[in-house]
């Protein structure tokens, strides 16, 4: 893709993200029932790695970083990485693209996610904090 096309795609992503951010700022997913619920949770009563993201985004937009981390720590930590990847992709910072350089990093992301998925479903004290309902 050419630079110009990448800029346009990035513009579309930013526009979508900011309109979503507006909705998540105004409405609270913990209170409002109109937000989509996790299909995996409905079927299995287990939390998926993404459970709590909507509440975390609401908290983040209100500046409550600690409660955002409590809702879904891994997704909040992944956000800067995703923003960075978008910038790196748009401007072709090849030297700085960490996600396609090191297979160690991609494996740690995979196993980190799997460990997070298991740990947040363990109903014991330190692990319970990783789940979205504490």
């Amino acid at each position: 893709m050419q630079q110009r096309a990448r800029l346009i795609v990035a513009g579309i992503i930013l526009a979508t993200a900011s309109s979503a951010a507006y909705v998540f700022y105004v409405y609270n997913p913990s209170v409002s029932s109109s937000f989509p619920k996790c299909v995996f949770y409905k079927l299995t009563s287990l939390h998926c790695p993404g459970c709590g993201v909507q509440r975390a985004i609401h908290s983040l937009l209100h500046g409550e970083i600690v409660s955002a981390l409590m809702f879904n720590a891994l997704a909040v930590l992944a956000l800067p990485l995703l923003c960075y990847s978008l910038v790196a992709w748009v401007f072709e910072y090849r030297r700085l693209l960490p996600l396609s350089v090191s297979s160690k990093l991609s494996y740690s992301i995979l196993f980190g996610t799997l460990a997070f998925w298991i740990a947040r479903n363990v109903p014991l004290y330190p692990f319970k904090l990783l789940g979205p309902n504490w």
Partner: protein
Amino acid sequence: MFCPSCGEKNMDGSPNCAMCGVALPSMQEPAFEDDRFDDFEDRDVRPSASRPRIDNHLVKAILATFFCCLPMGVVALVFASQVDGRVSAGDYSGARKLAGQADTWANFSIGGGLLVMVFYIIMIAAAGM
């Protein structure tokens, strides 16, 4: 010649791409089938020949896992995380295959997530009427 980075057509012999500014390979260098080159400085594990750059779709897989709430994103992560290892082992066709699978699973997950969202919006609209 065509720019290996953005695909813009450039005059033969020009040192940099007119569109994206990337340094163009000179004519003497061997061409690679992927015609995309990596240019990383840390050379400790790299042979002298350039490897093709294969997108591992890891970012898409992360997006699918955390923001679509469908466990299919994790499958995409499993495939995506193996791509770079295959590239460093020199197995480019295997790497491409894995990258393709990562892409497919991430797309399924994102598409499924969007479908659920559209379904919810329709339900809410129907309940509001």
